[in-house]
């Protein structure tokens, strides 16, 4: 299996989330990952793109989101980069705690961490936030 990559760029609109996630899902499905894992990756990707569009770029259509997907024999790596101010993931509370369970938001990052093997955030020197998610292949 060779290394394959794909890149997408989208404007910060709600409708673009579905379009971009569908394109990434197509790439992931062709990469030989199991259907069950593909479902989880799709969830994580949608949440990452939604976070970038809504919380990062705050639906400012002049700001862009870049998605980079890399399929290798060992793993799938997905990066989503926005032009926002960034945030501290440690400040996100656990949505499964009793005091948070009836909150209407705050589950996106939980899903990303649940379905992917690694999730980390960084702020680029030129600005903007990147989230990098890895799903290791089970050989």
């Amino acid at each position: 299996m060779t290394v394959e990559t794909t890149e997408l760029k989208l404007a910060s609109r709600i409708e673009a989330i579905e379009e971009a996630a569908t394109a990434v899902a197509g790439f992931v499905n062709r990469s030989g990952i199991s259907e069950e894992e593909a479902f989880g990756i799709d969830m994580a990707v949608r949440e990452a793109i939604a976070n970038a569009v809504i919380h990062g770029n705050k639906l400012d259509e002049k700001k862009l989101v870049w998605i980079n997907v890399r399929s290798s024999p060992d793993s799938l790596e997905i990066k989503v980069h926005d032009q926002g101010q960034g945030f501290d993931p440690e400040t996100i509370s656990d949505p499964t705690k009793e005091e948070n369970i009836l909150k209407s938001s705050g589950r996106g990052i939980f899903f990303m961490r649940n379905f992917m093997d690694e999730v980390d955030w960084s702020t680029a020197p030129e600005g903007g936030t990147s989230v990098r998610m890895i799903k290791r292949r089970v050989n």
Partner: protein
Amino acid sequence: MAELNISEQQAGDVTILDMNGKITIGEGSVALRTAIRRLLEEGKKKILLNLAGVGYIDSSGIGELVSSYTAIEKDGGQLKLLNLTQKLQDLLTITKLLTVFDVYESESEALNGFK
């Protein structure tokens, strides 16, 4: 085609919403919120969501289910869920929301569950 189609039927004092499509950020979540608000305004407070046709839901959709639940409870009503797909059941399990929602696999049992 709309992202989420909702059709309504009445069984006694229980309103059943048959939902088909996706409950995701944007159109799907808004459609669910609008339908629940309208029912509450009409005084219909016993609501059964048939989710058999919901093939996909994201964190926004799950948040909308939680908002629906809290809005209906606050208004003195009841919300129950019917026919979850395996994936939705898995998502409600990992978020611990299965402990919050009343979930049924049979419509008659669900209807009997309303007080």
